[in-house]
């Protein structure tokens, strides 16, 4: 055939989209730095039982609050508990809440969004009405009522936070699916005889992975902030468990006192985590954004 093979423009082995995305992500310096910070932070918290210099709840009432020193790098609190150890342990809860909320809200949101986007008018309208409804309800208030009334366990926090975040993912995924659905490869699959399930699972979902991942990252960040805000309002996890938000809320009154050092640790931990997650999310967004994707 005359026009046979086009010139092969890239002689190297071709990379699957995932690897390609990774390669492009790696080119974004701030995102990579943020990812490293995040991984280190998470690892430190995960390894808290081995890494922390003291048990997180060991009290030393005689010692009381002392500023950072050689044996307590971040000082101790009113009960003489080592701040560093507590921050590491609290991170386990904060990060778990963040990750769980991210995962849960993303899962629900993706499922709802994908179904709404693909199933068509009636289902779509019904699901979107529900989504709108959740968007209209005063989130933090519902959350506070729930925590106040259902108990303040991390599980309830996660459930309710996820219940308040999934709509954003659902909307984005729906919009993405709606636009993908109009793409001809979906029509091609239908023309070939593919079932609805196959189209959703094999064609639509793999293509919304990008926005889903980005939104999951943002949900994690938002959840950590929301958890700290709830703690400030007095709806944090129950002692002796603690989270960064609870620690920060506990230290709230120490601004401009000799114990102000109590504020820095958890505050910086939250700031650093959320900042990193946002940077990573931003990096991912640009990696997955079709507009910035060179052919």
């Amino acid at each position, binding site marked *: 055939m005359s026009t046979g093979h086009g010139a092969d423009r890239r002689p190297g082995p071709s990379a699957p989209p995932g690897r390609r995305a990774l390669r492009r992500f790696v080119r974004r310096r701030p995102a990579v730095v943020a990812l490293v910070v995040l991984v280190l932070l998470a690892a430190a918290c995960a390894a808290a039982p081995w890494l922390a210099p003291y048990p997180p*709840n*060991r*009290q030393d*009432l*005689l010692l*009381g609050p002392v500023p950072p020193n050689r044996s307590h790098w971040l000082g101790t609190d*009113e*009960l003489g508990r080592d701040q560093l150890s507590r921050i590491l342990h609290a991170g386990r809860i904060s990060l778990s809440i963040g990750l769980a909320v991210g995962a849960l809200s993303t899962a629900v949101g993706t499922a709802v969004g994908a179904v709404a986007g693909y199933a068509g008018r009636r289902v779509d309208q019904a699901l979107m009405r529900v989504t709108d409804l959740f968007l209209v309800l005063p989130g933090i208030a519902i959350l506070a009522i729930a925590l*106040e*009334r259902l108990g*303040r366990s991390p599980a309830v926090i996660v459930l309710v936070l996820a219940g308040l975040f999934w709509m954003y993912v659902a909307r984005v995924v729906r919009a993405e699916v709606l636009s993908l659905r109009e793409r001809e490869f979906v029509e091609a699959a239908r023309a070939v005889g593919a079932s609805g399930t196959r189209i959703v699972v094999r064609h639509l979902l793999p293509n919304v992975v990008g926005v889903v991942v980005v939104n999951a990252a943002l949900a994690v960040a938002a959840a950590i902030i929301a958890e700290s805000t709830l703690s400030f309002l*007095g*709806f944090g996890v*129950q*002692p*002796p468990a603690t989270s960064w938000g609870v620690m920060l809320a*506990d230290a*709230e*009154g*120490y*601004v*401009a*006192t*000799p*114990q102000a050092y109590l504020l820095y640790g958890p505050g910086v931990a939250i700031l650093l985590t959320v900042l990193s997650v946002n940077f990573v999310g931003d990096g991912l967004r640009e990696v997955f954004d079709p507009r910035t994707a060179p052919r």
Partner: protein
Amino acid sequence: MRRWTTMVTGALVCALALGACSSSGEGGNGAGGPSGPGPTRKAAGTLVLGAEQEPDCADWIGSCAGSAWGLWTIQVHTIPRVFDYRKQAGVWTEVPSPLLAGAPEVSERDGKQVVTYRLNPAARWSDGTPITSADFRFTWRAVVDGEDIYDKTGYDLIESVDDSDPRTVVVTFRERYASWRGLFAAYGVLPRHLLEGKDRAEEMADGYEWSGGPWIARWRKGESVTLTPNPRWWGPPPKLAKVVFKFLASSAAEFKAFESRTVKAIYPQPQLEVVGKVTRRDPQARRFVTTETGNVEALWVNNDRFPFDDVRVRQAFAYAVDREAIVRRLFGRLGVTEPVHSFNPPIQSRYAAPAFERYRADPRRVEELMRAAGFRRDGDGPWRKDGRVAEVVLTTTTGNKRRELTLQILQEQLRRAGFRARIGNLPPADLFGEHLPNGDFQVALYAQVVTTLDPGLCVVFCAKNIPGPDNDHSGQNFTRTRVPEADPFLERVDVEADEQERIAASKRADELLAEAMVSLPLDPLPNIGLWDRRIEGPVADNPVLGMFWNVHEWRCRGGRC
């Protein structure tokens, strides 16, 4: 019997409103004599003060009775009462207020107790109408006939109030009543001519414009209460043109507001970080810290629930807790180092025996008592009996950081002593509205706040006051305390007129309650006041009427605040 209820109600409302409950002390400094217009000086300057909470409403005998901040910001300044509270010879005592022309007389007529109040002829409402015995009578009927009255105790024992002489009030009781001093004091006297035939609760709930005190109060919901001098006030006129109480929503803001002098004085809850701030050096600030309060913060133990249904376990619990360490940690920097040892608060100290002094941390005693009670323990593990673990759920109100920290200390101390301790905090409404009345708790940490000098613990420790069908589930003995030996003494305190007998009965009751370790008193919850040094006048604590009760005698140096 009645004061306690008032107090308990006060405690509830107070705790409900998030707070440690303080109520005030130290009339000290020989503040204001009873009456007589002094040399009139032109009132000048506006003083802005910080109020930590906003009262829910201003219906002082109804749904908002006992609201501490309501009392401190509005009630004391506008409602005439028969007694003021002063420290005399080191003891807090009632003294006749400017409403009276002299001390009331107690007598007996036909075997009935009669109290006669002679009114100050100058006493009048802000509209010029004199305050008369009819107002007393009206107040009595309002309490007794009212629908949503929180506490009718005492008033329901009054047989009649004779208002035939406008200047003389003759109150006749059906039976003997030792705590008569609280009548027309905590509730004060209401203006008949303004309220009769109207819905009192409705008229007063959102504030009122009349006054029988030195100030007229204007309440702007959510923002402030403004006091302006009552032109008809018959006592020494206020020295300030205006006093504003700003409502502060958070204690962090409260201190910053004082630090920046947005407000010139605060009366904060003794939170932990407060301690640090109070003890900081600020040359422009003056302060007091007093343990002579009407407060008792305690670990209230449910005597009905395993494992504390056994007196030995309760005692072991008391020996497991290092109260001194807790108090030192919490309040040490304020100079408070000793726990309280009675359920009678410091202002009623003459009725109190230091009965709980015996309970000092002692692992050996814990061991002995627990084993005696049939508990066993493997190494560092928890105590067990018949397969059941000695588990304790510690409860306090959510949102109070100091109490939450206290529970964390306790948790650690109990763990070491072999009790498995969990923290399960509850919103105030749930704790006081549901869990305590239903006995659905094990150990609760909260404060009882007393706003009278009369003792009386029967309401919270007498067996007959355990909530149940007999008292329409309205009893206040939440701890389900049953110490039959103590009940007669507790009851006697409520009715005994003879002071010495009363003191003896009260102390005996204390001993018996401590022996049974019905609950464990912890600390007196010190009262703290901070004010700018430019404020001149008798600024001090008053454990009954609060720090601001005599603000009409305050002024600012150079007229500028």
